[in-house]
């Protein structure tokens, strides 16, 4: 037997194997994926974004034939990692994860990725905003908080992200919605904000619920309200803003995306893969245990969601003087 025959036979075998695999998979994605898929996280390992991505990778890998790897490309408040994905080869093997600060960065950083450079493939879920105060402030509900600030503008120090970050925007949206003014004290990320509130440096915080669930139960911190449509499963005793008579819904969310230019069939494959993964009850259970709310959406809905956030954030950013690039024409 000469070499050509061996090679031909090998090719035949490979083709047969591929056929067998293809038969068990959606027809559109016969040749995809063949290599490991990478999820690029734009924040350091250990944070919320990272934990969410690793959970998704773990469960999605069970539904596909290739490994799913998580890498962290960090810096510039998350813009570096997003830019890394947007500039990657549009072959569908590089997937990114973004939060609502992606929307803000478009207007604050000339190097940030804009929404037309990406194709959203799935929404993981919201990270609802909430309002927490130290127990020793004596404030027990949202109305009391707003009253205190109306009587004495700027009298409450609030711990939040730097301008453009998720919890900053929640605070700014709240100021706008209720016509109040707090003294916003910026912290680098959630953990230092938690420490700041516990140490008594600030009186309130606008972090997502899961950061304070334990302290709320222990009584040190009171979560005044959840800025979502429904109560949060970690603290079912805390009413929403709406239940207390204030129409206010705000917060962060997480979504997966690929760079613009990925072939349609591959986008479809990834959308199916991740949407189905996130709809899996076992996944939802694991994510809930880690403190995440899961409400999966498909690509088109995710894009609509991003655009809605954009409309909501833009006036706030403009008011705060944060819009330096991509200014919209009025």
């Amino acid at each position, binding site marked *: 037997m000469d070499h050509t025959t061996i090679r031909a036979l090998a090719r035949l075998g490979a083709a047969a194997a591929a056929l067998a695999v293809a038969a068990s998979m959606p027809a559109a994605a016969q040749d995809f994926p063949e290599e490991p898929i990478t999820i690029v996280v734009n924040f*350091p*390992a*250990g*944070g919320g974004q*990272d*934990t969410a991505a*690793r*959970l998704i*990778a*773990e469960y999605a890998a069970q539904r596909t034939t290739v490994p799913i790897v*998580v*890498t*962290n*490309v*960090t*810096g*510039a*408040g998350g*813009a*570096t990692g997003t*830019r*890394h994905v947007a500039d990657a080869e549009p072959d569908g093997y590089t997937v990114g994860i973004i939060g609502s600060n992606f929307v803000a960065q478009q207007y*604050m*950083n000339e*190097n940030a990725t804009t929404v037309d450079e990406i194709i959203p493939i799935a929404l993981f879920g919201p990270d609802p905003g909430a309002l927490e105060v130290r127990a020793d402030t004596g404030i027990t509900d949202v109305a009391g908080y707003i009253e205190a600030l109306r009587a004495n503008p700027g009298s409450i*120090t609030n711990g939040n992200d*730097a*301008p*453009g*970050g998720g919890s900053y925007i929640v605070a700014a949206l709240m100021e706008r919605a209720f016509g109040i003014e707090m*003294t916003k*004290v*910026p*912290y*680098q990320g959630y*953990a*230092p904000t*938690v*420490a*700041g509130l*516990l*140490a*008594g*440096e*600030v009186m309130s915080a606008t972090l997502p619920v*899961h950061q304070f*669930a*334990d*302290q709320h*139960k*222990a009584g040190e911190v009171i979560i005044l309200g959840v800025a979502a449509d429904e109560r949060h499963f970690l603290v079912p005793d805390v009413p929403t803003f709406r239940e207390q008579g204030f129409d206010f819904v705000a917060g962060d969310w997480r979504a997966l995306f690929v760079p613009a230019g990925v072939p349609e069939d591959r986008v479809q494959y990834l959308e199916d893969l991740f949407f189905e993964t996130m709809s899996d009850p076992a996944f939802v259970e*694991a994510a809930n*245990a*880690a*403190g995440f709310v899961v409400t999966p959406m498909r690509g088109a809905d995710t894009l609509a969601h991003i655009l809605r956030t954009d409309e909501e954030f833009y006036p706030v950013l403009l008011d705060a003087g*944060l819009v330096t690039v991509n200014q919209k024409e009025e």
Partner: protein
Amino acid sequence: MLDPFFSALAAILTDPYLLALSVGGVVVGTVLGALPGISSTMALAILLPVSFAMSPEAAMVFLLAVFSSSVFGGSISAILLNIPGTPGAIVTQFDGYPMARSGRAGHAVSIALLASTLGGLFGLAVLVVVAPVIAGAAMSFRSPEFAMATVLGLTMLAYSSPGSTFRGVLMGAIGLLCGMVGFDALTDVSRFDFGSATLQAGIDMVPLTVGLFGLAEVMRNLGLRREDVPEVPKMGSIMPPWRTLWPLWKPMSRGSLVGTFVGAIPAAGSAIAVVVSYAQEMRLSRTPERFGKGAPEGIAAPEAANNACVGGALVPMMTLGVPGDTMTAVLMGALLLHGLRPGPMLFADNPDFVGMIYSGLFFAVAATLVCNLALIRVIVLVMRTPRHMLMIGIAALCVVGSFAIRNSMSDVYVMLAFAVVGYVMGLLRLPVAPLAFGLILGPILEENVRRSLIVSGGEWSVFVERPIALAMLLLSLVALLYPVAAAGIRGLRGRKAAAPAPAAGGQDPR
């Protein structure tokens, strides 16, 4: 808290799977820690997915083994190659490397190992017994205290690093400048970016230290003519004699204390602990001029502090659910992935698991000691590999290591740039350590100074009104002014006694 601790310890000792995991974690952790370019945080982050498939208990035993051993591993390369494997080991090399070059590599590594063990155990003991108390104290730290703690760390470093304090301060200022590159933490305004996205992402600590210490050292070595390479004396014994070892218990205990308490302050981390304990030993020593030339105390104290920080950093994470540094942030992420949230409720709901974490850390410290004692003989063989092969290997490692930290090529170029800076600074006889620490501590300093002012409404008095902040500020001032005052006193004395000995290196160390 002790009952669950012992029962969990028994569980580890009787379960060959957990035992193997812990020992495996120690070996991997030591190696990764020793590789320049892989920090403890990164070692943990890359092994996080590996721990997925394990039960929560097994995952914690494994990750704690990696964590605690990687902290020691960083010192191995600091001592043997003058390249800190992890940023926490920068101070260890001040005395570790001169000691290794004088043929006592075995002694230096052994001292570091023993100090690590002691520090690790001390930190753990504090964690088990008085965690809530420490957590309460740490939580009384607000921005003014953080700011002053960083000032203290920076001045201690300028004071203790070789050469003049003045130049140390200036190098620290260059480090601060480098730390400001990229987005400002409080306003998101980009600074010193010169319009480049690479600089906008900021200068990461790992490429900077790898370039400044690692590649610069390689370049210096290659620049030496063959006959200029200082001959490494034949390696002597591995274990230092008892009379060297015994007096070290004091520096080790002091280092452990500093490490545990400073490590417990969220975000302050090990960087401040190591320099404070090093400066403290120098201050207390009757022969401070031996420091920087292979003083055993100069290895023992910071090394103990560095490892005591592990226990200290776990305190706020376990009791309050606030990770004290990037390493514990990854550990906390691992716990979250397994559906466990650290914090006050974990103690109440799941004391057995808390016991498992504690005993896992205990076992990790013990396994680090045993494994490395057995391996020191092999480890120090690094000193005997042909120098040029070793250096080229390290050069390649520097490149890959700085790429892998954020998976970005621009970090490689940052690393190369700082190799040049480090090389030039070597030629100019300028101390490099303050620059690295300036980069690490600068952002913490700036952020907290400004946040203090935001909260105080612009009153600078906030830094002197709070007693702890004031105490640290005064200590820093003393450290800064001490050399000036000491020189004055020395001058006076010198005139009086007309001593023939020169000011520096006068007293014989032995």
